[in-house]
């Protein structure tokens, strides 16, 4: 498959995630959209990884493997972020009984 | 050695004063420090005037190629002398003024003196900028803490205004620094040849700071407010010495460094100066507040100095230097009188005063002398400077409009007579009113300081030769770098 297919698919997914962040007010959904963005990136990385692999396979048998490893690290970080993020959302819910990102609006101007 | 001492003594004195709580001893120490500086300055003029004594050049910041290079040339001598004379005079003249937290007041005064000295002594552009700002900070605090009713707004305007100018100057200085192969050294800058077109805009970067400081119309609006709102002792520093920083800087840091830019814009600046002179004089005529009147008169005078610098000839430059000193002395004298009147009668309004000559003849006579010196009557110091400046402008070789410039500027001589005599008339002449009825003779310290000023006025007015000789070499050197004939 030509790599530009993957690029555009990833960008599309990424932008859908962005639109979700822009249009949704539920903090959890917003967060989920961010996860979607991360997954778009992951897909792109894997595609690039395979692209570089085939380009450099003669010179280096494991060429492109670092792309896939990076995806692994992204998942790690995403998991950590989720734990923290959900904790924050729950904390807020505890205080306000809402997960609307615009519900708390004391800090402005 | 001398140069370093001139900065160091007021600096140490100022810092030490923060620790002295007693008002009386604070005054004493301040005066003592001021006199010590004066003595050092005189020593530098007379005995210890070899280059080794006058200069100090040590590495400051290697990475930036900036040196702690201070030194005294003729112009430096003159302005340092002015600064050194002014502070003791100011201290004596305002001896009876009481300030809350007097020790801090005097401490800041001395710090500003150190800053001013630094400006006049610096031979390294970065150092110059350093002191340029440093002189401002103490004055800002002095005015804002001990000033009049609207002090905060007025001094803040002053501060921001000058700060904007000096930041733009800083950009210009750094630009030249790179042009000069990463050197801040004054001499290197003098030997520099920057392309004409670059000089054209670089000129304004530097000049904007100087123009605001002087101030040149239309950058002057901070000045009347600041003068009006500052405590008079500070106003004396501001108008007597600080505005000279601008004039001084044009001579030392602008004209020889950017001669082409200087000539390109000479006529433009001259026009601003002329407009400013007429403008300020006309406004001064309509002022009812003594402080504002003197402030506008100062704008007019400074305009003339700037005009004379742009004449770019020996007469103009030497006249300017002479006049820097004279104007400094004279305007301090005027402020002393203004201060005396304000503290005694609680008003600065001309319309509320009158008839003081009966109550206080000594003050009247001294003021008349100082005021006449300020309008450049012959045999006073003001005449020598103005004569040479006018002559310089008239015979300026760099502009086609020398005659016109002189004539228009000359109108200010007439207008200055009008407002000065108005002031004298309204304060001293006529019949005394209820307010001035209770007038008493002026206190001794004020009379002493005014007398010193009067003596200076006549000495330099009748026999200006030593001063002219002092600045002669400096002027020649500057003209050499400006590449104009002497």
């Amino acid at each position, binding site marked *: 498959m030509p790599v530009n297919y993957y690029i555009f698919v990833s960008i599309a997914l990424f932008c859908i995630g962005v639109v979700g*962040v822009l249009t949704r007010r539920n903090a959890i959904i917003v967060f989920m959209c*961010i996860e979607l963005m991360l997954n778009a990136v992951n897909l792109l990385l894997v595609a690039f990884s395979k692209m570089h692999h085939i380009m450099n396979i003669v010179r280096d048998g494991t060429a492109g493997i670092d792309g896939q490893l990076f995806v692994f690290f992204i998942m790690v970080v995403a998991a950590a972020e989720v734990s923290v993020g959900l904790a924050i959302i729950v904390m807020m819910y505890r205080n306000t009984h809402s997960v609307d990102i615009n519900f708390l609006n*004391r800090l402005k101007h | 050695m001398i140069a370093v001492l001139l900065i160091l003594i007021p600096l140490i004195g100022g810092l030490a004063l923060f620790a002295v709580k007693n008002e009386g001893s604070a005054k004493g120490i301040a005066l003592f420090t001021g006199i010590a500086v004066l003595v050092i300055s005189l020593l530098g003029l007379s005995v210890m005037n070899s280059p080794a004594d006058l200069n100090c050049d040590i590495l400051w*910041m290697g990475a930036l190629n900036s040196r702690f290079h201070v030194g005294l040339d003729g112009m430096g001598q003159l302005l340092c002398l002015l600064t050194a004379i002014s502070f003791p005079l100011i201290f004596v003249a305002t001896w009876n003024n009481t300030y809350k937290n007097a020790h801090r007041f005097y401490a800041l005064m001395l710090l500003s003196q150190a800053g001013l000295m630094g400006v006049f002594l610096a031979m390294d552009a970065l150092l110059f900028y*350093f002191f340029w*700002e440093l002189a401002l900070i103490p004055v800002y605090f002095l005015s804002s803490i001990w000033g009049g009713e609207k002090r905060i707004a007025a001094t*803040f305007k002053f501060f921001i205004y000058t700060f904007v100018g000096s930041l733009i100057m*800083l950009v210009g200085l750094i630009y030249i620094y790179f042009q000069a192969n990463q050197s801040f050294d004054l001499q290197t800058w003098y030997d520099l040849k920057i392309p004409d077109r670059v000089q054209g805009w670089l000129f304004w970067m530097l000049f904007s700071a100087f123009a605001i400081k002087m101030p040149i119309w239309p950058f002057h609006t901070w000045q009347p407010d600041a003068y009006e709102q500052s405590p008079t002792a500070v106003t004396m520093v501001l108008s007597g010495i600080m505005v000279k920083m601008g004039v001084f800087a044009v001579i030392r840091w602008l004209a020889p460094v950017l001669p082409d830019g200087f000539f390109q814009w000479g006529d433009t600046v001259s026009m601003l100066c002329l407009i400013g002179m007429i403008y300020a004089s006309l406004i001064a005529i309509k002022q009812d507040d003594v402080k504002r009147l003197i402030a506008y008169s100062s704008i007019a005078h400074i305009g003339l100095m700037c005009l004379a610098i742009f004449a770019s000839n020996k007469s103009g430059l030497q006249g300017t230097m002479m006049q820097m000193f004279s104007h400094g002395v004279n305007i301090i004298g005027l402020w002393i009188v203004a201060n005396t009147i304000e503290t005694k009668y609680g008003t600065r309004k001309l319309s509320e005063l009158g008839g003081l000559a009966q109550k206080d003849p000594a003050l009247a006579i001294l003021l008349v002398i100082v005021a006449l010196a300020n309008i450049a009557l012959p045999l006073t110091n003001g005449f020598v400077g103005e004569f040479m400046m006018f002559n310089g402008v008239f015979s300026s070789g760099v502009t086609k409009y020398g005659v016109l410039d002189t004539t228009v500027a000359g109108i200010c001589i007439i207008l200055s007579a009008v407002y000065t005599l108005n002031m004298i008339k309204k304060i001293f002449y006529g019949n005394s009113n209820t307010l001035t009825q209770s007038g008493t003779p002026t206190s001794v310290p004020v009379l002493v300081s005014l007398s010193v000023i009067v003596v200076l006025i006549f000495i330099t007015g009748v026999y200006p030769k030593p001063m002219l000789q002092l600045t002669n070499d400096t002027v020649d050197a500057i003209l050499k770098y400006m590449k104009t004939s002497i």
Partner: protein
Amino acid sequence: MNAIIFSAIWGVLMMFSGIFIKTKAVIRNLAIAGVAILLLLNMAELNHFLLFHINVRDMLAFDSFGLLFNSVAFACTLIYLLLSARDIEEVGVNLAEYFALIFFVLCGVSIASSFNTLLMLFLGIEIISIPLYILTGSDKRNLKSNEASLKYFLMGSFSTGIMLMGIALIYGATGSFAVASMAKQIDGFAPVLMAGLLFLLISMSFKVSAAPFHFWTPDVYDGAPTVFTAFMATIVKAAVFVAFVRLFDAAYGASLPEWRLTIAFIIGATLFIGNVTAVFQQSVKRMLAYSSIAQAGFMFFALFGYNEYAKEGIILYAAAYSLATIGIFAILIKMKDYTFDGYNGLAKEQPLLAATNTIFLLSLAGIPLTAGFFAKYYMLTAAIKNGAYLWLIIFAVLCAAISVYYYFRVIQAMYFKEGNGQVKEISPAFKIILLVLAGIVVLLGIFPQLLLSHLYF
């Protein structure tokens, strides 16, 4: 490497200390001691003394630039803890955890200042960010703190997404995550690389709160407990900048002219928005948030004119800005009223506080004789050296003049206005440290090479 390992270890230690030690003072002192040791170890590494010899496989690079910055950051942290550690106790009960998180952040700082691949950059930034989300929300009952934490987290994750997209595209174009290989791309992949770099630039701009990606900053700085704002606004921000500079070293530096316009746009917007919006603020804390945006605008000049002055300058700027801001925040924490009016007449009540505060504010405004002057000076020099975009520099200095307006409002309140600025109890030690801090600010304002000469050993 000393710093990374030791800070991680000490973080864990602090984590456990909460279980075993019940005396707050001991925990506090343990943390202070930890930072002090950290500082010493880092200085030792600067002088080529390593505790561990680890083959980092070119993932990290320890050069004098990064190490010197680490020293600055640790020294600032030390002063910060000395001044404000007691105030951390007032935020909540999890004292030991807060300290642990601070150590983890320091670990992230050390990574960010020495990364050599984008992976390490990413990890470093995340290690810095995640504890900060927590610290921001640590005042759990306070809705402002909640709000700030949520906003910070959501927008922070969003920017992480952008950063990852950038990294992915860069990887695609170059086939490597190594910083060194970022300058050259596969044939035909130039736009991909550029898009990747731009994404990366945007996300880094977000982290250093440059406009138009600064929106989180005022709200988060304002909502977070003040002690942690002080930490975030200074050390963390400086660290991200240092990471940014390292990035420029290889990635952007090669084709810097191509990036000037974009960076100029960011600088202009940042300076304008930061300075102008700060003018209106009534709360000193929020003003400082905007001020930090404005200062970021100035620090951006290090990237704009990337040369030897920029590298020296960013270190100096980091030190000058952090020291002064820490001082101001330390005093702010002691105030009962965070508005400008709260400072009225402080000079009379607390002359020393007012005086030192003045020095810090002057430093931020960039007045000579304070470190802030040379910081700004270096930035201007770095920018001017390139000789282009002079209008931007003029614009910058005009904005600097605007900054004087809001900094001096505090000075005006302290010195020129009547009132009695109410402060909480202040210990003599606090005053002494403030004085020392002010001394350092002034000393760096006269002899900046005291700091910078270490860059060349």
